[in-house]
């Protein structure tokens, strides 16, 4: 699936939920399922500093495809970055760089989340791209 297709899929899934509780539960669930990131990778250079939580993000090229690893001390934040990982893992660096991450706006997640959280989404998107630029 392309990035766009995966975004559409995610959008459909999130739209299934009626209220915030279910959406948060879904996001938290994604966070819980995110493959663990090695402690040794949780260093300052991999850190995206948020308002109250920390996210570590590492990326590598595996067979020409981006492979992201992420973790956070906050489960909700971890779920949020899991959204990105789900969409971007296994895509080419070129695609990551050139495809717009429209799901952030389209899902209404930004308005739905607390602004500090929403701000974290923007930071994450930027960092995912930066990794792809560095890898390519």
């Amino acid at each position: 699936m392309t990035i766009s297709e995966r975004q559409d899929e995610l959008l459909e899934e999130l739209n299934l939920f009626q209220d915030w509780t279910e959406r948060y539960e879904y996001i938290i669930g994604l966070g819980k399922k995110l493959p663990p990131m090695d402690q040794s990778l949780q260093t300052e250079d991999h850190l995206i500093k948020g308002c109250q939580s920390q996210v570590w993000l590492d990326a590598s090229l595996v067979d020409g495809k981006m492979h992201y690893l992420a973790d956070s001390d906050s489960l909700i934040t971890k779920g949020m970055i899991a959204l990105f990982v789900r969409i971007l893992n296994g895509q080419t660096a070129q695609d990551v760089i050139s495809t717009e991450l429209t799901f952030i706006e389209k899902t209404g997640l930004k308005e739905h989340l607390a602004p500090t959280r929403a701000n974290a989404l923007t930071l994450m998107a930027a960092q995912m791209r930066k990794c792809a630029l560095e890898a390519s």
Partner: protein
Amino acid sequence: MSFDEETAVRLARRPRWHYREGVSALDPNAIRQDFPILSREIHGKPLVYLDNAATSQKPFQVLKTSRDYYEEINANIHRGVHHLAQAATTAYEAARETVRAHLNAQSVEEIVFTSGTTDAINLVASVLGRSGKINAGDEIIISGLEHHSNIGPWQILCEQLGISLKIIPVREDGTLDLAIYETLLTDRTKLVSINHISNAFGTVNDVNSICHLAKQVGALTLIDGAQSIAHLSIDVQDINADFYAFSGHKVYAPTGIGVLWARRDLLEELPPWKGGGEMIKEVSFEKTTYNDPPFKYEAGTPNIEGAIALAAALNYVNNLGIESIHSYETHLIQELSSILSSIPEVTIYGPHDRSGAISFNIKGVHHYDLGTLLDQMGFALRTGHHCCQPLMARFGITGTLRASVGVYNTIGEVHALGEALERALKMLR
């Protein structure tokens, strides 16, 4: 929601407490009617505001005082011959007297209006720094419980004067180690600055003893009353400190106003802080003489409305009775404490006889996540370091979840919080 005069009159006449047995004579349901914001919904749920240590909500009595000020007597104060200037001056100076009486200060000359606690502490730091009373090699004592606003000003002063900061350590139960405090006190100690109640943990410090011991080595004392002002009856003569600071916004008054109480002889003796209108008696380019306290420390147009509204807020509190408020709030905090204690793997910080606030963490759960989910259910709590990073470091944590109460919170809200926590924890575990 908006209040017209009629509603205002009706509400003002409604009794706000009834004489019944039990923990408190306050009627929180009647009190809640005074606070327009409490009828709001958040994310479709009724607002449960438990972030009172950060700032309090305002009763319509205070809001109406502000509005009436602007609709009836607004003018710049002092020196004006016209009627409004005189009415505004009278109201502003009457507010000073209300504050004096509330703190049981000896005279109105001891009451300086500032923009808040932080401003008041910085005032003291700045003028002491230029007073010649503190010199290189001297020491200032604060505690591990302090808010950044009672750390930052002293760190800046330390750098300027080459003095050092000594810290009263915090014990495991969130109280200060006064035995160590005694060993820190020497004749190099020039100032001891401690909060009355810790905003992070709700610890009530024994400020009387702290001041008493400081006096024995001739040190000055400043009490940061940002938290205590809404919860305790304060008598500056009884505490026997040299300075007492608080913010209006924590005690049901607007933002932008606060108070520094200081011993009159100190205010007379210390140099001025800010220069400008009001604080000056005679100005020429060659020589300027300063006004007497408190005006000497109130440069520029003060927050006239803020001072008058602060007086209205203190009157509101005194109408209910600060003792009644205290016992009612203690009841809420104790109930919170027993609800939280029943949560598995909870850590509650601070001593059992805390005041105003209760801070906790739940193992494996980020306070930020809990706070976020609680917000979705309408509960306003604070998460994070509460501007007390050294205290968080002392306990090896990045922050806590803190519930802090005001006079309008109810036992019902406390129980609802318990249920909401359970629900949120289910999602996060």
